[in-house]
């Protein structure tokens, strides 16, 4: 009898500049990454995650939000996102993206939060990416290596 098992690909690091990302009280002005092309990976499911490090003396009891955007035609992205690593403010359109996770934060300086989630869209979009925004009150940590976004593609194979 055949069985179906997950097959894990290699992890891919996203291009996204989170160092010194400014805080936004309204949780709108954040940073998006360079889009990931699933047309080559052909993942059925994606395990995405990363780390975000707060800055110096952040305000306690705030949050970091992680959203996923994607294309519906290969060119246009939800919430008006672009295709490259850039500041992005989806004013009035943030909920057109998919909420991935909410990271509650404390007042500890330079606190690194490791987050993760499984992106199991009914069908993986052709292209997708990650948007991060926060309201911790101060810029995120200024060292690029203290932040990252990665994903592992998963395919289901019959053996």
């Amino acid at each position, binding site marked *: *009898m*055949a069985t*179906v098992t997950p097959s894990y690909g290699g992890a891919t690091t996203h291009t996204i500049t989170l160092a010194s990302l400014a805080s936004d*009280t309204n*949780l709108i002005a954040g940073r998006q990454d360079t889009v990931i092309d699933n047309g080559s990976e052909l993942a*059925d*499911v994606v395990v995405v995650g990363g780390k975000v490090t707060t800055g110096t003396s952040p305000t306690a*009891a*705030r*949050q970091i939000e992680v959203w996923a955007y994607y294309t519906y035609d290969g060119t246009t992205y939800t919430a008006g996102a672009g295709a490259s690593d850039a500041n992005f403010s989806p004013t009035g359109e*943030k*909920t057109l993206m*998919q*909420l*991935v*996770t*909410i990271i*509650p*934060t404390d007042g500890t300086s330079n606190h690194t939060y490791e987050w993760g*989630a*499984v*992106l*199991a*869209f*009914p*069908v993986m979009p052709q292209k997708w990416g990650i948007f991060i925004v926060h*309201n911790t009150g101060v810029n995120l940590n200024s060292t690029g290596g203290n932040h990252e976004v990665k994903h592992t593609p998963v395919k*289901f194979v*019959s053996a």
Partner: protein
Amino acid sequence: MAFAVTGTEYIINSSPPVTTYPVTVGAWVRPAATGTFNAVWHLSQTGNDADRFALYQWNTNQWNTLVSVVGADSSCLAGTVTANAWIFVLARWISSANRRIGVLNSNGSTAHAQDTTSAAPTSLAQLTIGAASLGGDPFSGQIAELWYTNTDIQADGAQLQDSTLRQLAYGGPFSVPHIAGDILEYRSFRKHPFLGEAGEVYYGGKAIQTWAPTGTPTIAPHPPLPGSYIKPNAPVPLLKRLLSSGLFDPTGPAVIATLGNPIFRVQRQPWRF
């Protein structure tokens, strides 16, 4: 979608499954305005607000786990009412000497409060969502993912832990097994309250509840929730995708699995190829 009310729409249950302490109510709410008294969930005497449990938006721009006895209100106020922003509220009527509220504000901060005024309302027999018993103090805004139990979800009656509050907000009540088992009614309000309820309404150990509308409740955008939010009877998304992947014989025996749900069993049968 969410249950949208504009001050003239609400729904009434004239035979509610809960009539006394303890009660817990959770809901996402998005008020349209601030500075007013607006009832979200209201358990009262029939057509009379003198004795009641009620989750209220208060005119001080806080959320209120309210109890009233012969018209005398005892408030338990916390959090911030922010217009046009989604807020998760968790109200607990624990005992006649203990009410608590937990709020996940729209900016991610949390707030808690307790009221220990002795209050024992009687003859509670009408449950209203979106207004008080006779349509007074109508809520204007959106209500979604509303659920309630006839228990206190934290057995020691203490302040709800922030981790539990966030788990209930972003994972849903069915993501916490000991709470899921006590739910009397859950309504996602992703669909109209009286149309197309399949998969969006759950009734616990009590009977199916009957609601009567006043006005014409409408539907509106739903609060953003993670893909991991657990609904009561939706098949595991992964299994749905496997079943539609073409890898399996569609005429083979069915597999049913609703992981994380305390009511449904996981059943697996061998596939045939």
